């Protein structure tokens, strides 16, 4: 065989190998995104489970702030009912804002806070809030890495062909941003 044919075959093999590598990186990236998302949902589920307990415990003592409690429960139910990731992101952000409001109110009831079951629940819930925030941060990191892969050169050529599109970030909603700015820090 001629040298030209060897070069041609070598170049062909190189291209095939690099396409396989790109495809594998994209698949692994999508897997990581799904994984990170399921990490968030684990923590969100935990939050959904904890909220009714807290609401039940504080209901009696907080006669004047019943609206605050119903707002939290409504936001929770909406978050559970969400079907698409986009919907879920919006509902969870609203729930985070409502919860911050409730935390601030509970702060104003020292006798409530000193109850052991209330403070344990608040601790548990604020720990879960932190975990949601970090899970979301990790999810966004992974999404960013995948989106760079999809949008940068060579990835760009094949991503669409293989059916990969940019993933959406878990943005902090405008309601929550306002709550972060306004809410006093909760010390437990």
């Amino acid at each position, binding site marked *: 065989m001629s040298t030209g044919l060897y070069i041609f075959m070598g170049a062909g093999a190189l291209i095939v190998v690099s396409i396989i590598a790109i495809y594998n990186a994209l698949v692994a990236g999508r897997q990581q995104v799904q994984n990170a998302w399921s*990490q968030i949902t684990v923590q969100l589920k935990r939050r959904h489970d904890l909220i009714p307990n807290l609401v039940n415990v504080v209901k009696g003592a907080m006669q004047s702030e019943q609206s605050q409690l119903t707002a939290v429960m409504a936001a929770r139910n909406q978050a559970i009912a969400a079907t698409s990731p986009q919907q879920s992101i919006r509902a969870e952000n609203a729930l985070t804002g409502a919860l911050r409001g409730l935390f601030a109110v509970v702060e104003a009831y020292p006798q409530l806070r000193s109850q052991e079951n209330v403070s344990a629940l608040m*601790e548990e819930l604020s*720990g879960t809030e*932190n*975990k949601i925030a*970090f*899970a979301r*941060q990790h999810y966004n*990191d*992974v999404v960013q890495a995948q989106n760079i892969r999809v949008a940068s050169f060579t990835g760009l050529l094949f991503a669409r062909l293989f059916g990969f599109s940019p993933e959406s970030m878990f943005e902090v909603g405008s309601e929550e941003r306002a709550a972060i700015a306004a809410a006093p820090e909760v010390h437990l």
Partner: protein
Amino acid sequence: MASGAPTLINTDFATAIQRNKDNTLLLFAFLVVIAGIFGYVLGWGGGIIHDIWTMPAAKVSHLTADWVVRDLFSLPPRTSALFGALGMMATGALWGVLTLFLGAHILAAFVGSRDANAALPAEQRFISVVEEMAIAAGLPPPRAMIVDTPALNAFASGASPESAVITITRGLLQACSREELQGVIGHEMGHIADYDIRYSTVATAMAGVIVLVAHALRDLGRRLWAPRDADEVGGGAGPWRLVLTLVVVAVLAVAVIVAPIAARLVQLAISRQREYLADATSVKLTRNPAGLIEALQRLQQGDTAIARAGSPVATLCIAAPDALSSGDIFSTHPPLDDRIARLRNLGGVAATEVAERAGATAPQAIGSSIA
């Protein structure tokens, strides 16, 4: 790489992480090269001494001291030199892998740590911060353990992220606010996520093998250093054979003295580089340089001694755990001031801001917070 805080440019954690990784790789290559050169010289020495004593006497008298030195750099090199180089590098790697698998089991017993108790509020907080940082890093949560000592320190151990352990002293746990604790645990999580446990174990082992071989040879040299009747062993050219051998021994002596020092220095430089890396990774996880800066400022004021100098724990602690003043080239950790200066460059946290926060959140002295 130490000092030079004024020349630091503003950077972000992603760039800092990449640069530290590149530096480590370079230093690691250095260490392997040192092992290779040391092995090469030893192999060459063995080979040429064998030649000197087996050659016919007539040929030996034509050889000069100059020939001995030129032979060291001759191409192609002696087979024994190549075997020496490969052997030294392979032994270092093998030793590293061995200590990696055995070391983790010995460590917990070594410092006397126990599992954190979720029923105690402080330890509950520690457990949940460890879980938070694991989530932020996208890794399984490490086992959380406590050492009951008032000293201020923390370290990571384990051969892989799946089997990792984060240990903190009771003193540090009680001295830190939640934000500071996140910074400290983020640093340890960084050691785990960046596979420092493997890096530093293998680097320590590689340097350890070089030091060990050098010591053994020095001992051997002293024992063989006895006057002997040269004529008896070497035939007619005995004295000349002995002189040539002494030239070889002089070259070997230089290698035996220089190699272990060089290896130890490079290994410690790697360790310091990994500390900067873990600091940067901590900020990646917490997105809050202020927490770690405040925690490091606490370490500056407190006693961090939990292990003797040169122990395997040292490179994985948050601050140098021995009495050595950090900052010199024999330290496992960079000076805390330098680390704080670098952290301030990540995302540009103003010094005044940190000072204000420290003043607002930590009015009590370290000593008084230890029960």
